[in-house]
């Protein structure tokens, strides 16, 4: 228990994120169903977002909102880094967009092919 | 050197198709005069007599007698006799015995391709009267109806010795300027040709084989 307790919180998030990335990659590489691959992608994406968030953490920091709780004078020393949070916000939306397009492509493939198996879509090659 | 274009000098060549006619010369052969200077003509005849090149064309059984002529025993080389494989260069045509109709066609062609003065020796009895083949349907009984003959050597078969004697006789005749077979042939060309065509049914050559 103490091991986890002593581990910095951000490292845990970081490791979980990286593990999620790996799991997502595993899904993308081994699952032949496209929808599952998209799920894999989502996992990877989420993992990356977790990594991003973890990077922004400052030991003992609080949310970067400067109000009564965190006066301006103390801001620099008490808040976590707002930049990764901002980035992650953007990245999430972008991931969403990509996922949406991916899904619609998968739907169209299914409509055209009646299959979602990636290894049945290999007619253009060499 | 220039081909005459007057129609009487050309032959009909009716045995040839229209397409083939342009491939063969249709000129009529012409006789040649002796050299105007007698001495030159004599000298030329001497040279011709001493350089008898026999066309290597065995037309019948008698051809077998031609071969020993060149051997050590008879050595016709001594008399300037030699064999030539092409009629263009030959001056003597030895008809080796009977001539079948089929062979006659080739004989005529070869003879016409020899350049004058040219001489014909008939060997054996067959060219004279058909010999043992006198009643054969395809043997020529009387050869001189078809080509002018300069010398007959009769016998069945004449041995090479007789052949040598005949050659010496021919030489004598040539030196005397009496061997004008080529001219005779040309002068009586139509007659000869008619005779030839009488027996040779499938005449597919030009009338004169230049």
């Amino acid at each position, binding site marked *: 228990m103490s091991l986890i307790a002593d581990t*910095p*919180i*951000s*490292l845990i998030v*970081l*490791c979980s994120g*990286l*593990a999620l*990335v*790996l799991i997502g*990659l*595993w899904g993308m*590489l*081994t699952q032949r169903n496209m929808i599952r691959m998209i799920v894999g992608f989502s996992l990877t994406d989420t993992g990356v977002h977790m990594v991003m968030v973890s*990077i*922004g*953490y*400052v*030991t003992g920091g609080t*949310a*970067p*909102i*400067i*109000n009564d709780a965190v006066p*301006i004078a103390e*801001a*620099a*020393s008490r*808040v*976590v*880094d*707002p*930049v990764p*949070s*901002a*980035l992650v*916000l*953007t990245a*999430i*939306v*972008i991931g*969403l*967009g*990509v996922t*949406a*397009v991916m*899904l*619609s*492509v998968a*739907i*169209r493939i299914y*409509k*055209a092919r*009646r299959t979602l198996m990636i290894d049945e879509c290999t007619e253009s090659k060499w | 050197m220039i081909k005459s274009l007057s129609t009487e000098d050309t032959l009909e060549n009716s045995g040839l198709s229209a397409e083939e006619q342009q491939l063969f010369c249709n000129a009529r052969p012409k006789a040649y005069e002796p050299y105007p200077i007698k001495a030159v003509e004599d000298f030329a005849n001497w040279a011709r007599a001493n350089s008898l090149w026999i066309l290597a064309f065995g037309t019948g059984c008698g051809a077998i007698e031609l071969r020993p002529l060149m051997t050590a025993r008879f050595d016709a080389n001594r008399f300037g006799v030699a064999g030539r494989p092409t009629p263009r260069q030959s001056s003597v045509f030895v008809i080796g015995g009977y001539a079948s109709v089929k062979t006659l066609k080739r004989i005529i062609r070869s003879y016409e391709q020899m350049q004058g003065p040219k001489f014909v020796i008939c060997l054996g009895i067959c060219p004279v009267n058909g010999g043992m083949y006198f009643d054969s349907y395809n043997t020529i009984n009387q050869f001189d109806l078809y080509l002018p003959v300069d010398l007959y050597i009769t016998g069945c078969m004449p041995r090479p010795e007789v052949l040598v004697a005949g050659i010496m006789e021919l030489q004598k005749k040539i030196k005397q300027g009496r061997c004008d077979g080529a001219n005779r042939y040309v002068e009586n060309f139509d007659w000869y040709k008619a005779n030839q065509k009488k027996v040779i049914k499938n005449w597919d050559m030009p009338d004169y084989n230049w």
Partner: protein
Amino acid sequence: MIKRLFILMMLAVMAVIFLNLAGNYRENTELSRLGHYYAENGPQELGAPNLVTAVVVTYRGLDTLGEVTVLFISAAGVGLLLRRTRRKQDDEDLEQGDRAEETAGVHKPASEIVETATELLLPMVILFGIYVFLNGHLSPGGGFQGGAIIASGTMFLLLALPESHISRLMIAVIESLSGFSYVVVGVLGVLLAGGFLDNRIIDPGTYGALFSAGAIPLIYVFVGLKVGFELSAVLDRFRKEDTGPL
């Protein structure tokens, strides 16, 4: 099988690489240069208490414009991909069964509980969404979050009333105009303030008040509207696979 093994090997190597990353990671004890600057100067410069919002809308406003664009084009892309096949040539790539299914378009009606809950919750959800993007510069939240909440309202609606009609025209007009307005605000930044997307075209007002932080709330309104309607459009398209003229 060999391929699978190979994948495993690759992932193992990746894991080693990641371990390498994690092993060398030391948690930050102080803010990065950028973060430091924002924490110190953000409130004064922009008048927005929520630093993340300040960063998102202004410091990294170009990102956000891009983000909006991404959403916009993915909505457009989804629309393009899932448009109903009208023309003959498009039909040719579909098999017979598809067409039958597509033309049928029968949706099961939702259960009564869902319908009732939706009727009850929908206004609140949308209201909450609006609240979130309007207060984006003050508290956690913002245009995207608010837009997403609004879109979830749409989701409710679609679940409860599968046959309900959402006006394409309205969506198109709102998302186009809000997007365009965002660009206009950005351009105004050049003309009236320091640069493109500068939020100080409007007087910052009272620090911490609702109508403060310059153009940030304005931008968040556009963003919220845009995101909400775009996500709704995406959901709608996934539902129907029919866009009609966009």
